[in-house]
């Protein structure tokens, strides 16, 4: 069993994101970067599958620049067997990420690709599904429960949908994206991170995989959302109900 887990470096969910005054991007000075929370969950699930099944290889891969190596090290410290950087110039859109990952899947032939459902920087929620489409692999998105079937060749997935939990049977190889409630990622210890620093990081380029990194989306500018004007504090429930009756148009 081989499990491929694509992981992304993103601004930490606890940092306040601000748009640069000239709209060219977000302010990154002083911003802490982390492993995308959904990717930590995907990786945790891969590690648990390995622990349950015994023999399995977990390969963490990131597409990005030199600084993304930090997140690969976090992946190794969590317990990934291998870490791979596909060095890409500049920002990539989901289609470009999926295209490069598709080439990597053809090369590595994993039994399972486990991704986050969404990168919390671009909030796209696309890569896993695009990858599934490109490769014609079965897909289960927004998965909060994953169980291997006795045959070891298929899984049962609980998916979080607008209507409630949906259960699917999925034959491997497949693409699965992780939702928040799938698991709680393990804590990474400092000694674990120190040890991970000595482990090798594999490296590839899109060219070596026979694909280009061209994106079809181009961000022209960013702007900050319109702020809300300051509201009023009310002292009593009576006042609040009165304000609701006229202000909010209730009858």
């Amino acid at each position, binding site marked *: 069993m081989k499990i491929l887990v694509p992981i992304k470096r993103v601004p930490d969910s606890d940092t306040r994101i601000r748009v640069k005054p000239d709209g060219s991007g977000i302010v990154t000075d002083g911003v802490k970067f982390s492993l995308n929370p959904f990717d930590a969950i995907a990786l945790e699930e891969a590690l648990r599958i390995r622990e349950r099944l015994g023999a399995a290889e977990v390969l963490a891969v990131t597409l990005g620049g030199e600084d993304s190596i930090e997140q690969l090290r976090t992946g190794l410290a969590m317990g990934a067997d291998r870490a791979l950087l596909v060095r890409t110039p500049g920002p990539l859109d989901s289609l470009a990420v999926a295209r490069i990952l598709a080439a990597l899947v053809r090369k590595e032939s994993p039994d399972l690709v486990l991704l986050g459902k969404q990168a919390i920087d671009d909030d796209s929620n696309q890569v896993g*599904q695009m990858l599934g*489409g490109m490769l014609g692999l079965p897909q289960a998105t927004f998965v909060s429960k994953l169980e291997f079937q006795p045959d070891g060749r298929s899984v049962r997935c609980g998916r*979080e949908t607008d209507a409630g939990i949906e259960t699917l049977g999925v034959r491997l190889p497949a693409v699965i994206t992780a939702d928040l*409630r799938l698991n709680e990622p393990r804590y990474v210890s400092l000694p674990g991170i120190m040890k991970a620093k000595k482990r090798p990081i594999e490296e590839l380029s899109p060219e070596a995989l026979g694909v280009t990194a061209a994106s079809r*989306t181009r961000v022209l*500018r960013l702007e900050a959302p319109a702020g809300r004007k300051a509201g009023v504090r009310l002292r009593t429930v009576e006042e609040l109900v009165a304000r609701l009756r006229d202000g909010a148009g209730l009858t």
Partner: protein
Amino acid sequence: MKRTLVIAELDHGVLKPCTHAAVAAARRAAELAGGTFEILLLGPGAGTASGALLNFGAAALHVAEHPELAEPLADRYAVAVAHVARGRGTDFLIAAASTFSKDLLPRVAGLLDAGMLSDVVEIGADSSGPLFKRVLHAGNAIATVILEGPVRVATLRAAAFPPAPRLESTAPVLAVDLSGLAWPDGTSFVARDRKTSARPDATEARIVVSGGRGIKTSEDFERLVGGLADALGGAVGSSRALVDAGITANSLQIGQTGKVVAPDLYIAVGISGAIQHIAGMKDTKVIVAINKDPDAPIFEVADLGLVADVYQAVPEMIERLQRR
């Protein structure tokens, strides 16, 4: 965007209201490009559901009913959508953002090698072509984006596209020929645990009452948040903290990674106002916050704030609202 295709969303054969937002966006795209738009309905009951979309300006309604489409499995639906898009020469594919379309449309984009934008809130154009606005970084930034390539794909925030008015003309309804398609069989439907509720869905309601960690149990949630929602004729929602605690169903979660709502009135009951929660409700017209902590960040976005214990304030609110 000369030939736009809207993917309608059905819930057991009933058209979901958010489809009207996608139709409004399609009309806008067609206007900008001097083109036309069509609508595709898939799955059981698609033919009947098409009746609700006859008079909204579509050049045609395509109905895809097939035993393989009995459940909305993305693997199979994507094959049908891509088949129709290719056959119709579609250059712009859209649907309202929901777990249905977020599952399906990127897969279609992968099949068609198309670029895609999620959660679009504005469609415009300049001399070089169409321009889109979308929200990212948990609502902390709005991007203006160009989408290139022969086919474009997008999901839209329903609240940003008010439904378009009905027209005189009636669209023809055409059955899609799905014979000869190779259906993937790697996924199979097992079950759906549907939360049946008499209350409306938060994404479709004018009023949403939402509870957070200030609520301690499911019974309290039902009594306080549910009770207030019922007194106002609204829907219920919740923060992730309550979903994590097993107090509310995941389908109630509002926020960056849950549902995005923009009702007329949103009442946050015992919610601190984390950025990930705000991302899902800040386009509400009037936000009300009830929280015992005067420094809770929710008060920074609230139009009306009440510093109080929800266990005291909410029963009194319900009582006063019922008294009228």
